[in-house]
């Protein structure tokens, strides 16, 4: 069989496509902004940080309202006396957390590619 003149063109195209597939693969590995794990008296809840939502967790003192927006989680209201947790900055780095101890609610970010800076600096 004689070698067709189009062989070079085909090989270039196949290599380009393979590189593109690799980039899609690499970005799909990194893109996950992880999830927020919520520990409550009645079990563990888990929410993806990829989509915005508002949800309510009920603790012994009452409701804690959590908001996920732009890949960050925060407590916007809680039935605790001081409401300290509502003043915390929104969390999006793996390992960062917000706690509302009086109402037994703990938010932790897990599996995000944004590592907590302290972990890297060791």
């Amino acid at each position, binding site marked *: 069989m004689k070698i067709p003149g*189009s062989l070079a063109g085909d090989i270039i195209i196949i290599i380009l*496509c393979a590189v*593109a597939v690799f980039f899609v693969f690499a970005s*799909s590995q990194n893109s996950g902004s992880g999830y927020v794990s919520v520990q409550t008296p009645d079990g*563990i809840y*888990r929410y*993806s940080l990829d*989509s915005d939502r508002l949800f309510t967790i009920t603790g012994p003192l009452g409701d804690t309202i959590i908001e996920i927006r732009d890949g960050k989680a925060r407590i916007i209201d809680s039935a605790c006396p001081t409401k300290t947790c509502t003043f915390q900055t929104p969390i999006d780095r793996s390992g960062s957390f917000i706690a509302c101890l009086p109402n037994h609610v703990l938010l932790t970010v897990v*599996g995000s590619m944004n590592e907590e800076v302290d972990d890297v600096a060791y």
Partner: protein
Amino acid sequence: MSPTDRKISFIAASTLLLSSLEYLIPKPLPFLRLGLANLPLLLVLQSIDYPPYFFILLLKAIGQGMVSGTLFSYLFFISLAGTMSSGFTMKLLKGLLKKRVSLVGISVVGAFVSNLAQLQVASWVVYGPAIWVAAPLMLGLGMITSIILGFLGERYLQYGSFPKTFLTDSFEPVLPTVEEQTHHIERTIAMIVAIAAILFAQGPIPLLMITLLMYAIQRMSRRKIRLLPPLMLLFSLILLALFEPSGQVIFTLGTLALTKGSIALALTKGLRLIALLSASQSLVSSNPRFKGRLASLLVLALSYFGILTACFRTVKGSLLERVDGALFCGAKGTLQAVHSSQNEQGSSVSIIITTILVVGISIASRVWM
């Protein structure tokens, strides 16, 4: 019907023949394909101008929707996006590079663009961004199958006898006799109402009830019921739900977790789509009628497809030889299509009553939930 119209319909029909052969091959994801149906497109790239080529692409997508019955569901948009985007990219590329690239390179680019477009539309209409988890696998598999398809195309162009005849200008497929099919307008309307009700309904349980009723209607419409594709669809949605946790954790698997909220969402989406697919099947079997050039081309393409299928059954040999033979036999018009006796259809009254039930459940699901 002008010779060009016949040619267009005939090529579109040959894509339908190949996609129905493709249908016999089982696949793990509902929209994962070997892409056999793109073979005719590859072969005619150089010999056909843009306007007729555009009609062939459109007829291929709509015809596949008619044959598989998915035309009136949003799965159709996924396949339409794949066909149109890859079809035009392939033609553009061949026009630019001409002899510097073979069908293998063209086919690889076509598959890549088609998969990308399908993933994007699938993420918009059903699966959400989680579908991109499957992207590397789909694109990677697409590269392998498209290389095979490209080689098959080159081989067929060299050894098949049909392309040589076809590419001459004098080629003209014989006009088939088109059999009029009765249009059940009341069923068409009932199914359009049912589709609205399915889109309106809320919650997994009402949607499950609706899905079962839709299958009952599909049975009354004498349309074949397949259980594997919908089960695959549900399974893939639940699998993807692992990547989008939302709600109380049922069990964990490393970083993946099955959560109540995402399961409910996957079931709702899946059941809604399955019900919609079933409604689409019944809608197709009511033989809705359309007007215009595209509609008459579609009717012609579907009757060529009937003849090609009948021809394919009579030809012996390897797959390529059988396809080659079927195309010859179809173009000569020596055989007539075997018509599935669609005349003995169930009563429209029971279909309408069931549709009213579906509407009732749909409204109730909004009121009580």
